[in-house]
């Protein structure tokens, strides 16, 4: 670990906290349909959209109608992506003449991008045409993020409103989030990325002549001489911008944000990190403003920051350690190198930025990577896994992070109520058995899917285990990570294994689907139920949700729920691998 590394991490978190207020205040204005400066540009587009599609912008929806509209929209967009993937061979902008995508991959990918997961079982540069990337995938980066935003706002309205049966209008929230927030920010960000070297073109792949031709020995022992290098191109910057801002994470290239064309400089890396956290951090301010308690928003933000700090410290420390199995290798940090575990990391990012990125991308449900998590040290790789298993509520995905966190808030308030022996209240609303039941349902679906699928998979030697890239406890971690990433809609992977098989494509598809939509329904049910309630005046028995005590309780609840659920699995994976590594075992 170095001073410079820590300075970069501190600058990052300082900027996130600084930008949260303006970002959050802007989103409050946008979703409360107050006047904002881009009204002149997007107002006409908004009205045109409503007129053509027949949306009644003044109509208010109950939680059930909100859910139906959201599901109808998600299904329609899923259908479009599946069709574009299957038909790409017949469509334009296919400079590499790629054939239509196979059905299981196409379905897995369509679900993956619809659910904001962006799990990728394929190699993009040899599978997807430019049109598919733009029209089939980048569109989902907008849509799924806007859906997340809309749902978070609906949940916040549920807390804010009193004796109301409705949560707002899904279509209006979707449109305002897309046009006022995601689209303009992506545009500016994309241009900034191009200025640093992120490519944006429709060229056929370029073919360079190698400066030094290479002789490669194949598996059959025969040598072949390679004289050229094919350089994949594409409209990358436009997709990269929304991939990060929308916490989607699906790379234009296989190597994702490690690829020099997606993330060429330390500055693009820093901006990408900021763009993952800026909307989720801002939403805590929006929460505070909309429920009329900015201090509550800050208490939630503080809890997130504490959990982030623990994660990044652990990961940075672990990745700075040498691999004890390597000999005659200089792994210490010096003036000339950052040292540490450099397998699967880029020189321009080094250990500090790789550890920071891995923590941020899994705190949020982003899933973009600038280093390969599969090659992290056991404890370093445990951090992203644990982040996902906690539910990605540390800042979290756009929207999804906030509503996930608010479910934990309900549980924390409930536990506080039990401790003082009073009916728990949250911002003046009584938390009753229905709310707690739905919260528990939300919290239980998640481990059930992850541990269930992982357990079934490890019992199938051929279908489940033969595809793994690494053996020993690391193999178990790979499987756990895959289902955690899918169910948590993260999309990053311990990517060495061949996940592109029928079993994994379909089972991971189901996990992504359940992890998104089956969890949204209980969440909206809580929101709908909260909106109906009266406000009870605060009394001496009310547990305040604005104090440091509340922040500590919230962090404790998150950690304890996570630990109780996943500790056995974690100890058989990364913890065991760590012990074996230092005992000198390799597999």
């Amino acid at each position, binding site marked *: 670990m170095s001073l410079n590394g820590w300075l970069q991490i501190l600058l990052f978190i300082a900027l996130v906290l600084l930008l949260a207020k303006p970002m959050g205040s802007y989103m409050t204005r946008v979703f409360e349909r107050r006047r904002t400066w881009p009204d002149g540009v997007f107002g006409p587009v908004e009205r045109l959209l409503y007129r053509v599609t027949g949306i009644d912008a003044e109509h208010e929806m109950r939680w059930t109608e909100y859910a139906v509209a959201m599901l109808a929209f998600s299904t329609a967009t899923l259908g479009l992506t599946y069709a574009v993937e299957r038909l790409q061979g017949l469509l334009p902008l296919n400079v590499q003449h790629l054939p239509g995508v196979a059905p299981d991959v196409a379905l897995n990918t369509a679900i993956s991008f619809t659910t904001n997961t962006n799990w990728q079982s394929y190699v993009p540069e040899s599978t997807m045409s430019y049109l598919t990337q733009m029209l089939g995938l980048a569109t989902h980066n907008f849509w799924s993020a806007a859906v997340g935003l809309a749902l978070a706002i609906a949940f916040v309205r549920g807390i804010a409103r009193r004796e109301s049966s409705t949560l707002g209008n899904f279509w209006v929230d979707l449109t305002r989030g897309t046009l006022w927030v995601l689209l303009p920010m992506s545009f500016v960000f994309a*241009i900034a990325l191009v200025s640093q*070297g992120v490519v944006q073109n429709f060229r056929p792949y370029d073919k360079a002549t190698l400066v030094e031709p290479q002789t490669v020995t194949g598996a059959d022992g025969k040598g072949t001489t390679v004289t050229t290098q094919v350089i994949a191109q594409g409209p990358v910057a436009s997709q990269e911008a929304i991939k990060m801002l929308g916490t989607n994470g699906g790379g234009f290239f296989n*190597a994702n944000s490690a690829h020099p064309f997606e993330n060429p400089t330390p500055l693009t890396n820093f901006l990408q990190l900021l763009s993952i956290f800026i909307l989720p951090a801002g939403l805590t301010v929006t929460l505070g403003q909309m429920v009329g308690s900015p201090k509550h928003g800050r208490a939630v933000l503080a809890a997130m920051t504490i959990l982030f700090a623990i994660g990044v410290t652990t990961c940075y420390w672990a990745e700075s350690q040498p691999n004890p199995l390597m000999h005659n290798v200089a792994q210490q940090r010096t003036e000339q190198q950052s040292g540490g575990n450099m397998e699967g990391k880029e020189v321009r990012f080094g250990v500090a930025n790789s550890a920071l990125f891995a923590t941020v991308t899994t705190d949020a449900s982003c899933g973009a990577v600038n280093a390969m998590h599969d090659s992290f040290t056991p404890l370093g790789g445990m951090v992203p896994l644990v982040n996902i298993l906690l539910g990605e509520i540390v800042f979290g995905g756009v929207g999804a992070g906030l509503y996930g966190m608010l479910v934990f808030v309900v549980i924390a308030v409930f536990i506080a109520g039990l401790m003082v022996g009073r009916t728990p209240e949250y911002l003046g609303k009584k938390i009753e058995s229905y709310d707690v039941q739905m919260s528990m349902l939300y919290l239980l679906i998640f481990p059930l899917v992850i541990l269930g699928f992982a357990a079934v998979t490890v019992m199938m030697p051929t279908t489940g285990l033969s595809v793994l890239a690494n053996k020993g406890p690391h193999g178990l971690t790979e499987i756990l990570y895959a289902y955690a990433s899918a169910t948590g809609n993260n999309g990053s992977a311990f990517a060495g294994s061949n996940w592109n098989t029928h079993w994994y494509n379909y089972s991971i598809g189901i996990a992504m689907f359940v992890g998104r939509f089956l969890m949204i329904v209980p969440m909206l049910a809580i929101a709908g139920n909260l909106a109906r309630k009266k406000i009870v005046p605060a009394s001496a028995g009310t547990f305040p949700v604005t104090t440091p005590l509340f922040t500590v309780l919230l962090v404790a609840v998150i950690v304890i729920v996570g630990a109780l659920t996943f500790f056995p699995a974690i100890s058989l994976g990364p913890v065991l*691998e760590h012990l074996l590594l230092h005992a000198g075992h*390799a597999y």
Partner: protein
Amino acid sequence: MKKHITIAILYTLMTSVLLGLAYPLAVTAVARLLYPKQADGELITQDGHLVGSALIGQPFTGPGYFHSRPSAAGIGYDASASSGSNLAPTSKALIDRTEASVAAEQNGAPVPVDLVTASASGLDPDITPAAALYQVPRVAAKRHLPVKSVEALVQEHITQRQLGLLGEPRVNVLELNLALDAMAAKG
């Protein structure tokens, strides 16, 4: 229910044109206008033909060139198949591969770690200053150039942290080797 299905289909079609076509095309237009070289991938041409991109690494394994890092992209630095090795720290394959690299690179002192480990993309254009300086004696001997001038060339090609803070110091291997060729040609 039926109403929302109709809206969903129309809404998907309209916004897909806006977000899937108009937006990327607008970004492309502005990018081409402001940053044409960057938008195309900072391609390097020499004597009229393309020799690579300043951002994408190339394989160098001969003794007369500065070596790049091991690569897991395709058959190595295949920029249409970017990938890391994804080998675990407890993987025998990783330890064996590293030992082979160490044997190939070693000049007595321990080898800088980045020179014997594969990058995340398999296309890492850079090595650390430590890895570049480590190779100076071998390259200078093979090229019959004074060690001092090769070392000076490396020092010239060190890119410092961006804005004095971000990232890590690094050396672009392709650019360094092209400069080395130019220096050797001048004699």
